[in-house]
């Protein structure tokens, strides 16, 4: 779950990291109540990246222009994510910018600090990136090692190390996937503060992080309406520009099915993993949400029974066909109780195709039939 900048900053503050003073506004007029003195920085609160390049950060020299800017910013949508509010901050006198984050490193299998002596830029493109693996349990020396590797010395090294300890503490305590400060600013007064930040909370940990209870529905970001609904049902739906709705059990199998559809000339309209169990309600929901998409000409269902019982899936299919007699379905089912499923499906006029490649071929063929005939 991505957080808005202002949320990330309040978490930083909660863990003792200095942030600039700031006020969140949702109407241009709110600007009149802010007494930081101009110029002010106005920042779109969106869940996507690339905000700066998209023009989501502006400097207001005075109130009149500020209100104008605020109006524009509040209307923006960046990377599919609508502006939720504007964060207004006074300008900070910057002596130096750094980059600092904590995230998990797949290769090492542990959290790492990522730092750069150059902040404010795309970290991937900076040549001065330093990574330091964080042993378990954490001790502050790791943060000092980071500061030293960044080339920092003296009291600045000590301050940055202390801040990095706090950032790690937030990362661990709140089950974050990413805790990023960019830029980490050294002011002309040698204070270090988080001028901008990004926090991603681990989705699997939401059930134990009381602090984020109920946040998920407001942080779906650039998901489509159907993707959002699926997410809240615990299903992973990704909508794509094609016309073949793909439903499978298992992420790898779903991707492989998509890949085959594409390879043999079709165009996937959905990636939808219905998961491991044979929950009829979930399967039904999945079929309905794919069918809802007006782009979808044909649904390719590919279930390889391991845990999943084919007859349970068949029952969901029979129910779905009753409600949607015009839907075009290609069904690949294989696994437990396959014969029972075949019998059940045949009564609904559905053929059970045991071979994946054959099913993919059939789905592509059906998708090529002109739309008027398909529905």
């Amino acid at each position, binding site marked *: 779950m991505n957080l808005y900048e202002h949320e990330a900053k309040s978490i930083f503050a909660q863990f003792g990291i200095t942030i600039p003073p700031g006020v969140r506004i949702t109407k241009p007029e709110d600007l009149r109540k802010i007494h930081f003195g101009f110029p002010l920085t106005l920042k779109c609160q969106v869940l996507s990246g690339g905000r700066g390049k998209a023009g989501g950060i502006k400097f207001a020299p005075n109130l009149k222009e500020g209100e104008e800017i605020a109006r524009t910013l509040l209307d923006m949508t960046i990377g599919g994510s609508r502006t939720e509010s504007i964060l207004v901050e006074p300008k900070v006198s910057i002596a130096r910018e750094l980059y600092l984050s904590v995230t*998990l490193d*797949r*290769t090492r*299998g*542990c*959290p790492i600090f990522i730092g750069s002596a150059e902040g404010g830029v795309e970290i*991937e493109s900076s040549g001065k990136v330093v990574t330091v693996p964080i*042993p*378990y349990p954490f001790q502050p020396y790791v943060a000092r090692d980071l500061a030293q590797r960044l080339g920092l010395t003296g009291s600045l090294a000590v301050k940055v190390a202390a801040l990095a300890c706090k950032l790690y503490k937030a*990362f*661990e305590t709140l*089950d974050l*996937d990413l805790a990023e400060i960019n830029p980490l600013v050294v002011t002309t007064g040698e204070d270090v503060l988080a001028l901008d930040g990004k926090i991603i909370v*681990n*989705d*699997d*940990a939401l*059930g*134990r992080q009381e602090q984020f209870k109920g946040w998920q529905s407001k942080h779906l970001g650039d998901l489509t309406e159907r993707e959002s609904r699926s997410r809240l049902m615990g299903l*992973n739906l*990704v909508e*794509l520009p094609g016309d073949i709705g793909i439903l*499978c*059990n*298992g*992420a*790898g*199998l*779903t*991707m*492989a099915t*998509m*890949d*085959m*559809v*594409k*390879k043999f000339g079709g165009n*996937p309209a959905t*990636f939808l*993993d219905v998961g*491991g169990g044979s929950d009829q309600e979930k399967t039904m929901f999945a079929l309905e949400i794919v069918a809802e998409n007006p782009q979808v000409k044909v649904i390719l269902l590919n279930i*390889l*029974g*391991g*845990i999943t019982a084919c007859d349970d899936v068949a029952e969901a299919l029979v129910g779905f066909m009753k409600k949607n007699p015009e839907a075009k379905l290609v069904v690949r089912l*294989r*696994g*437990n109780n396959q014969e029972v499923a075949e019998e059940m499906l045949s009564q609904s006029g559905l053929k059970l195709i045991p071979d*994946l*490649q054959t099913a993919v071929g059939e789905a592509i063929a059906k998708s090529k039939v002109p739309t008027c005939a398909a529905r």
Partner: protein
Amino acid sequence: MILVNKNTKVIVQGITGKMGASHTKRMLSYGTKIVGGVTPGKGGETVHGVPVYDTMRQALAASGATCSVIFVPPYTTLDAACEAVDAGVELAVVITEGIPPQDTAKLVAVARAKCVNIIGPNCPGVISPGETLIGILPGVIFKPGPVGMISRSGTLTYEIALVLSDAGHGQSTCVGVGGDPIKGMGYEELLSAFNEDPATDVIVLIGEIGGSAEEEAARHIKEHIRKPVVAYIAGQTAPPGKRMGHAGAIISGGKGTAESKMKAFTAVGVKVATTPGEVVEMVAAARAQSVGR
């Protein structure tokens, strides 16, 4: 075969849960030596004839098991897996999905310090066909034979095993390493294990988008693996920035694409299939060649 065989004694952690109990039954019917189960507070019960203990220490002392398969809820998995490690298992197979990855990182640190192998989490488990099945894989799909399989996916592994088995290419051992970004055993140590395994002639590696494990595996293959490897990468058509089901399956910042992984494998002489059907063809060719040698 690697890691497990018909003599491997296994404890099921979370045996009295719905999933634990049903898979205990499946594993038993496959022939797996399930010698005990653990559920705190349920010691003394039995599940499908298997004795239940309160703690792993008790279970291992009573049974001499060396392996654990874990079906406990995600937020208690770190605790359960650390218990298995501390009690002295050699291998813990973590089936549970939805474990916060920082918990997994902690588990990996604890297990490494004690030289215990972890498979998973969020994985289908491991099978040495005809010998033992530890996890939730559908045993009937797998046949004994000389193909070693390593996979980040569950059902896709079944799909490929199915077409391989149908074409007469049985498997020595299949290991599902799991779909999470942080995990226990990875490609490299398993590739090396198959490389040393006399029962394995060809290795099939099933990867997917996200991370750089496949690229690292390619480097490892170049340096250390003599046996033929066939690779398949799922997600060739996945859009960037979207999590494709698995927590680990995401292309971010231009990194982790199927293209990059396929290129890395091709560059080190690994055959890369684009469909399950091609995996079968490439395995057949590799076996024919290795017989020819």
